[in-house]
């Protein structure tokens, strides 16, 4: 009966000693090849020959070494590191603090909550960024080779526990705080009586559908979609709910101060609905209708852009969010309804 292979932990040793010599293929250096091929099949011999020709293994005994040997030229790199990293830190802090590059002011309470969370994150990350980068510079400067002997410090459990604990509290705490701003838009539904508007992405434009006076959207049938008959969404003419639906493109008009629920969908590929002032992005996914809601509190015109790669016209896919007064909004709907 064959002897069973030993189990762990002898296994590594067993496998290492059991290795069968094979004709070793080798690197692409001609000299090496000539050595190896001269004694095919015998790795032991190959190896001895190889060592004779190319030098022995690193000696088992250390070369005499003066412990305080100094490698010259360690001050310039330390200064350069300090220079580069301090410049970086100062620039990043000053530019973020100046607020020169920032999204325009938020126009909803939810967007302000996002901004709040963003600032909180910015402060925490800013402190960590500055302190760790400067610690790196400090370490490089203090412990550059000046002929000293390095200290043998394999670790420090207390210290490691401390900073792992601190990281858990800081990062998970920050994450938990961020829940509120997310929940406000995505967990909770819209206020009752919200104005519903359907947003449809298509290559490469947005279409907006208002339910009309009856407050109900008509049925859609993709087979009826036709730009020629000016039915870009495929509203079923047989459905009475759809007869008063108003479809616009280019402008999403909403009344100021009124809760609005957007039903976001797509009819070809994935698009995205992004308005910086709402601090809101939502993919428009074919096959899904994703609701998001907001209450805009400032009259104005804001860019709607597509941020999900949707084809060669992706960067041109644009519309305007027009937040208007209640009366302007009524007029807008009337004009649009007349032109349908």
């Amino acid at each position: 009966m064959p002897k069973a292979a030993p189990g762990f932990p002898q296994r590594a040793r067993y496998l290492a000693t059991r290795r069968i010599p094979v004709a070793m293929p080798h690197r692409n250096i001609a000299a090496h090849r000539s050595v190896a091929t001269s004694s095919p099949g015998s790795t032991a011999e190959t190896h001895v020959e190889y060592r004779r020709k190319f030098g022995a293994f690193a000696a088992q005994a250390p070369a005499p070494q003066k412990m305080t040997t100094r490698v010259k030229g360690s001050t310039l790199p330390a200064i350069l590191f300090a220079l580069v990293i301090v410049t970086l830190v100062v620039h990043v802090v000053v530019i973020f603090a100046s607020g020169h590059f920032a999204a325009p002011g938020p126009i909803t309470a939810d967007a302000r909550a996002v901004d709040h969370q963003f600032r909180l994150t910015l402060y925490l990350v800013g402190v960590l960024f500055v302190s760790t980068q400067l610690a790196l510079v400090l370490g490089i400067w203090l412990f550059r080779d000046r002929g000293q002997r390095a200290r043998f410090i394999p670790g420090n459990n207390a210290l490691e526990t401390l900073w792992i604990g601190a990281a858990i509290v800081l990062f998970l705490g920050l994450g938990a705080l961020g829940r509120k701003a997310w929940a406000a838009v995505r967990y909770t539904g819209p206020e009752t009586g919200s104005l519903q508007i359907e947003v449809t992405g298509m290559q490469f434009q947005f279409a907006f559908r208002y339910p009309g006076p009856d407050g109900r959207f008509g049925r859609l049938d993709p087979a009826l979609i036709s730009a020629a008959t000016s039915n870009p969404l495929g509203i079923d003419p047989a459905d009475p709910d759809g007869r008063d639906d108003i479809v616009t493109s280019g402008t999403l008009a909403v009344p100021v101060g009124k809760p609005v629920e957007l039903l976001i969908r797509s009819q070809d590929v994935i698009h995205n609905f992004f308005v910086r002032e709402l601090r809101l992005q939502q993919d428009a996914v074919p096959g899904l209708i994703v609701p998001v809601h907001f209450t805009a509190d400032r009259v104005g015109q804001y860019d709607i852009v597509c941020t999900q790669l949707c084809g060669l016209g992706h960067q041109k896919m644009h519309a305007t969010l027009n937040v208007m007064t209640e009366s302007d909004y009524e007029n807008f709907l009337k004009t649009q309804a007349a032109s349908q």
Partner: protein
Amino acid sequence: MSGPVKFRLFSTDHKVIGLQYCFLGMIAVSTGVVLSLLMRYHLAWPKGHLPFIAGGIMTPEQYLALVTMHGTIMVFFVLTTAPQNAFGTYFLPLQIGAREMAFPVLNMLGFWLTFAAFVVLLAAFLVPGGAPISGWTAYPPLSGLGDITGPGEGAGQTLWLVSILIFCAGSIFSSINFIATTIDLRAPGMTLMRLPLTVWAWFFTSILILLSFSVLFAAGVLLLLDRSFGTSFFLPAGLVVTGQLQTHSGGSPLLWQHLFWFFGHPEVYIAILPGMGVTSQVLANFSRKPVFGYPAMVTTLGLIGLLGFGVWGHHMFVSGMNPYSGFSFSVLTMSIAVPSAAKTFNWLATLWHGKIQFKTPMLFALGFVSIFITGGLSGIFLAQPAVDNMLHSTYFVVAHIHLVMGVAAIFGIFASTYYWFPKMFGRAMCESLGRWHFWLTFVGTYCIFVPMHFLGVAGGIRRYADDSGAGYLAALQPLHTFMTVAALLTAAAQGIFFYNFFNSIKNGEIPGPNPWNANTLEWTVSSPPPPDNFGSEKIEVFRGAYDYSVPNSAADFIPQNAPFDSAYDTIPVTPQRES
């Protein structure tokens, strides 16, 4: 096949294969950089005439094709190929005291599949319609319906998918090989807790590759079926593209995103873990100190890998996925910051009370730490779904991914190259050219990628071929110009590296077998190593990998194979006379 072709091309020697991966990575990274420079030039000067571009002035679809190919080449053929397969294949057996990988033929097969995948991918540029425009993430339905959705979505997208499938197969083969080799072929005495951190990193990366690329392979097959055989895994009913109603029904576009990012997020760690390993190794080596908290460093590598499988949903916060799962993905993502922070602090502590020698590999390792801090911290913003509401798909994400996954990993690759070059080629790279290369690259990459954060916060959107869409984008144009100038200069600085690399192979100084006074086993063999590594030499390991500056020892390093009570353990009684 016989003779030189077999020896040089179809060798099963892990060292030859490692070099093959290395050169494939160099070709791929050069291609990827050229593509990115074309994009950056176009973003800064949209009316400018460009080489390699049909028609001279770039069209939006050509821009998107470059976006796709740049991402794919860099992620797959550079960041997966170089740190793991090039240096891992070459040095894993040497570092654990093995004579070969466990499956040499599988090793060779892995390389040739990767090479074939690269050729198939580049072929996408040449087919009618050109390269695909759907990005490296290839979201269906854009990528699932053929050329009706856009140029490049026909044959180009199919070739892209086939290339990815071949690449998956190659990577899976090579990862199985890594895992088996690490577990089974360690020399006697090379216990798990004596492994160099590079080996731990390659080992965890292999597990990530095995699990994640298998899923990408399956997803790729499904997408190919959708495209070519009329199935509807990712395509819902009622799609109307350019006025034509599609016949697909019943699929889910989000399913692809789940499958893709189940691969895609571990992929980030596949790119960065080997860089973390080599940074630990190099920091210890050139601080002449043990790695601070070795057990914690091993644990955090494993934890990052493990948690990496639970966070894919943070790419999908605004995708229409259930918002509750969005929040749980956010919590898991935040918890990855914990082991990452622990690693950073341990690296800093490794420097403390050290004796820092600024050799070129050390410069890149220190650069890695700085870049990893900068790039990693921006992830704290993106990990929160509420904040992601305003930063998703902006240049903020581009800055984050490029710094933490791209530049940091590339710095790891550069550190590895300068560190192991003497071992691979028997000659050293020029130190002063190396220093110039480092400082120009370090400053240059910060100049390219830091402004992207500002651009993103202001609402600059990625994957836009020009700023004609929204009015506010034009105001951000000066940032683009600045970044493009920085990118051109930084790319030019890489010429120093290539010159140094190829010149040193021929003319570099010949160092001893252990030029850095390092402990790990690869430094105990001659440079370059013999064909059979250790041959019949009985290799036995007695120590951990980072015994630097051990008190009462004769030298400030002790090779792993030095027995106890060897000459290393005692200070000679008579002082050494200085020569």
